[in-house]
């Protein structure tokens, strides 16, 4: 292939599909025009040098956005990225540590045990941090691509008025960062537990030899069915946290989104609790044998436990919905931000 073809092909590679052919033809014509008659390889070399790097030329044709996360979100992205990476790494560390303590290796002084623990801690913190960074980035890319209005829009076309100024800091409408971060930590802990280490949620019974037998609460295989839904719910939750983080103030749209999220969460929880297969049968038999009772009794205990837990979840969620809506509606600016 000659130089000109190679040049044009390279430019085309960086262009959107629909203009490739036409730009290619035009560029070819232009290059031919720039060359003298009976041109030599050197002439071609000179003309292509004049046109410059194919990537730069293609960029000139392509005026669409070329970034994943643009200037409007960049600062918030970096600051949130740091927090989330720290939280995720800490959660992953915590879970690994707890798992080790619960499993209680027979002899901590045995060669390699501590080294193994340290290696596992480092790798789990790293994996946790990567997961956090990945998901935060995904959420920001979605924000950037969809141009979702989240109350922080210096570069959007909307005409700014002084009404858009954030209220003074003692405003009831202000979302507390601490609260957001706390809820974020809780979400990450639970998702990470269910997703990565569901076997940690278990009964640990110390045997005669000092090594505990572990009976998991959940049927891990069955749990896999719910993992996609759990991840989606956690992602929506993470998206809402990021929204809160950026917007800094409540608004009605946010309150409604949160209410919808809470309802989705309740539905998922109720479905999971109602699923008889999700509880590990061994857990019930082990429970019965420890408490020296029948399997049926142990099974009723578990059922009652599920109901109490379910009721707790529903109450917390409904409380959250009500509180958010009331707080938002009470404030003078609350309804004003709704489009």
């Amino acid at each position, binding site marked *: 292939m000659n130089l000109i073809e190679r040049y044009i092909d390279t430019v085309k590679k960086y262009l959107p599909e629909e*203009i490739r052919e036409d730009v290619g033809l035009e560029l070819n014509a*232009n290059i031919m*025009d*720039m060359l003298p008659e009976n041109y030599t390889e050197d002439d071609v070399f000179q003309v292509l040098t*004049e046109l*410059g790097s194919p990537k*730069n*030329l293609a960029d*000139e*044709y392509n005026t669409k956005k070329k970034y994943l996360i643009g200037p409007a979100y960049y600062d918030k992205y970096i600051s949130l990225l740091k927090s989330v990476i720290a939280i995720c790494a800490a959660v992953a560390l915590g879970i690994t540590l707890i798992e080790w303590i619960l499993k209680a290796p027979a002899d901590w002084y045995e060669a390699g045990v501590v080294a193994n623990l340290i290696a596992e801690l480092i790798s789990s913190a790293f994996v946790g941090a990567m997961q956090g960074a990945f998901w935060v980035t995904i959420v920001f890319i979605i924000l950037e691509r969809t141009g979702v209005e989240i109350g922080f829009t210096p570069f959007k076309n909307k005409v700014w008025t002084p009404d858009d100024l954030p209220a003074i800091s003692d405003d009831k409408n202000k979302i507390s960062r601490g609260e957001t971060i706390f809820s974020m930590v809780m979400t990450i802990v639970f998702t990470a537990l269910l997703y990565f280490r569901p076997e940690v949620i278990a009964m640990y019974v110390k045997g005669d030899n000092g090594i505990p037998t572990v009976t998991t609460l959940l049927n891990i295989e069955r749990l896999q069915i719910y993992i996609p839904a759990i991840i989606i719910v956690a992602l929506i939750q993470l998206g809402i946290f990021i929204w809160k983080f950026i917007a800094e103030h409540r608004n009605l749209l946010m309150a409604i989104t949160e209410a919808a999220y809470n309802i989705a969460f309740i539905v998922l929880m109720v479905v999971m609790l109602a699923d008889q297969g999700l509880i590990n049968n061994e857990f019930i038999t082990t429970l019965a044998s420890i408490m020296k009772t029948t399997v049926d009794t142990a099974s009723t205990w578990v059922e009652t436990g599920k109901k109490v837990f379910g009721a707790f979840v529903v109450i917390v969620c409904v409380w959250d919905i009500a509180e958010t809506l009331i707080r938002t509606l009470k404030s003078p600016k609350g309804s004003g931000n709704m489009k």
Partner: protein
Amino acid sequence: MDSVGEILGSLAVELKRGTLVLTVLSQLITKEYGYSLVQKLEEKKVPIEAGTLYPLLRRLEKQGLLQSEWDTGESRPRKFYVLSEKGKDVYIQLKDEWRTISKQMEILLREEEKNEPD
């Protein structure tokens, strides 16, 4: 810290970039193809790099300021550009803008020269 030359260079490029569209519009009352326009501007001592000009023509066409057609009559096909009705309208108004700016700038600069003779 950048040298005076570097700063001046980048400022001059910026200044010139603002005049690119007006320059191109002014030359497309009659139709031209990419390279003929490059040559025409070079002759008139307002050179624009080919790598800047070709994409600019396309962008202006996309905005509806230029019309284009492939002329396949000659030995090799060429894409010709010419002002559209909308382009003419924009050109006339942009020209007025330019004249106002350059007049006001001239006044500013002269005033300053009068006040502070070297």
